[in-house]
């Protein structure tokens, strides 16, 4: 179905046949071949990373992905950030509260009161904001080193491990900026709690 839409001779014409064939070629190339080649190469060369960086315990059972946060409610464990989806990773998201949304202020005030109740040794003005705000993904696996440190007195009291020992543990699991430059220093809550669990049940 070639027809001319150009009056000039010597220039290319509009061609439906080329358009259709070009579409098919690139649907196959970009939509099938490219992702499959990427999957094949990734699975072959870097199977661990390509499959979600899973963490296994001593018995070889998968306990999580090091990239995906988990919900911790036991006060003996380090807690992660607020997640409106309770770290249910079949989805992702947050409440998207505007800075002027009073629901967010209420939620934060409740968090602060709970903190005061559960952590009598650490005053609220040393409670870092990241610990009581909702991450963007609702799956944030990290907290700041300050947020880990602030929880140590509580965990020390409940587990009997000394504050110094817990402090060292938190330091061991503090990851620096990538290449010393990009991103922020952070503590992976799941990895830290796995190490803590090992200390408690050797």
């Amino acid at each position, binding site marked *: 179905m070639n027809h001319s839409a150009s009056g000039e001779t010597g*220039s290319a014409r*509009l061609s*439906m*046949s*080329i358009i259709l*064939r*070009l*579409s098919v070629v*690139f*649907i196959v*190339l*970009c*939509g*099938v071949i*490219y*992702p499959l080649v*990427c999957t094949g190469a*990734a699975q072959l*060369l870097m199977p661990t*990373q*390509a499959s*979600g960086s899973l963490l296994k315990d001593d018995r070889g*059972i*998968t*306990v*999580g992905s090091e990239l*995906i946060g*988990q*919900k911790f*409610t036991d006060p003996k464990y380090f807690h992660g950030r607020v997640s409106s989806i309770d*770290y249910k990773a*079949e989805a*992702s*998201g*947050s409440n*998207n*509260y*505007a*800075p*002027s*949304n009073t629901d967010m202020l209420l939620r934060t005030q409740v968090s*602060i009161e709970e903190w005061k109740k559960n952590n009598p040794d650490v005053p*609220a*003005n040393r409670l870092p*904001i*990241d610990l009581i*705000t*909702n*991450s*963007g*993904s609702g*799956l*944030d696996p990290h907290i700041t080193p300050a947020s880990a440190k602030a929880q140590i007195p509580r965990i020390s009291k409940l587990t009997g491990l000394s504050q110094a020992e817990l402090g060292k543990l938190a330091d061991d699991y503090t990851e620096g*900026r990538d*290449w010393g*430059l*990009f991103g*922020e220093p*952070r503590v992976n809550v799941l990895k830290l709690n796995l190490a803590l*669990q090992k200390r408690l049940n050797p």
Partner: protein
Amino acid sequence: MGILQMVVIILILLVLVKPLGTYLYHVFSNEGNRTDKWFSFAERPIYWLTGLRERKGMTWKVYALSFIITNLVLVAFGYLILRIQQYLPLNPNGIGSMEETLSFNTAISFMTNTNLQHYSGETGLSYLSQMIVIMMMMFTSAATGLCVAIAFIRAITSRGTTIGNFFEDFVKAQIRVFLPLAFIVAMVLVALQVPQTLEPTLSLTTLEGVQQRIAIGPVASLESIKHLGTNGGGFFGVNSAHPFENPNGLTNAIEILSMWCIGAALPYTFGLFAKNRKQGWVIFAAMMMLFLSFLALNYAAESQGNPAMNRLDMDSSQGNMEGKEVRFGIPQSSLFTTVTTAATTGSVNNMHDTGTPLGSITPLALMMLNNVFGGKGVGLMNMMMYAILAVFLAGLMVGRTPEFLGRKIEAREMKLIAIAILTHPLMILVPTAIALATSAGTDAITNPSFHGITQVLYEFTSSAANNGSGFEGLSDNTAFWNVSTGLVMLLGRYVSMVVLLEVGASLMRKGRVPETIGTFRTDNGLFVGILVGTVLIIGALTFLPTVALGPIAEHLTIR
């Protein structure tokens, strides 16, 4: 350290501009060079399969019809797949077919390089749809934008009679630019822990003994082209804030540079085509000045935090962390937000809805201006449009016939440019007004008071600018929002492209005016100032009232 991270990324970008801009020039100059040899093994069979035996130049009308019809064919294909994905293979999680208006919105959204998402990838798309619809459109829409920009550059700079052949440009853009780059970036991202698998959602028991299901899939291959093609649609609902899409500071830097580099290199490519590299740098400098001002605004506002939260009894010295990820903190979030809206990508690594009111002026304003670097090619075209307008205004002020690149700017071009400049605000402000006046629109608002206005304004601004980021609190998966934003995305994408191609063709037909001592120079510092001034004045005249009603009013209520 925060500012240093941003400076280093900007410096890496500056280093990339020249080699990448030169490479793009060689790809599209149609003069024989080494890139022909490297890629002919892949291009020859494609030319054979598509019947592209002779690749003669096109008139602007044929060029425009070719890319529009190609896009239409792909939209129809994408719509069909989304509607029947339930019955197709590669659907290990058993996801159902997509509803009509949402399919309409999604197909248009990805074909127009917008990637506004009214669905969540985890629950809305099968792996097949992620691949054959989403990734495919990420490649084809980016290539379309790049081709049109190159055709426009050829038109306003060439001495010849043709703006090129769309099909040849399209094949070259895919084979020589997007496919190889996307593969490399995807592999680097996998090495840095971004998953790439066809396994279904994982299921495991957490440390506290609760069942956790973790959505996964072919993420890295989507992530790379999502940024290289300034597409921006996430594999997961929360986009690049999801730890699988963007696991660390390094992937964040790579994603920022991926979405930024081609748009930033194009002014240099333009300079090479114009045989006046300084002209390219002038355009680049104007873009960078605007970029840095808006980056500073966002970074300052987010670091200072939300005044309402700062009054509570806690340590809020980190700044506004609601909706942000700890691994990025304020600096990497702020830079990402500014680049993604400047480059019209629309991916997000933090929730824009939760940003401080003053900080959220940055993404809004960059999408309203729509010419600071910009998506694949479109930003450069828009900036050139403002450059022609700036020349025209300056010419009027001193009473001289305006010229740009040795060609007279006359009534016909100015009328066309007026259409293009007015379409953008029209596509934002009119639908925003309609949405705010009807319950179909206001029912979607989830945050109270002035912020609700911003949610609506942001949605249409993002659609018209083909950005695709959102104030995601908006409950926008309804027939009203799917159809209205679908239409806005279509008009926002194609009207300015077609009109500017016509401007280019009109300029190309004119003879060159010899340069004299009286010629107004467009390749010096003065012109950078005039250009930035023109952009800001037009932008402020058009959009300041709505910005005052939204973010500024909200700020005044919580400060």
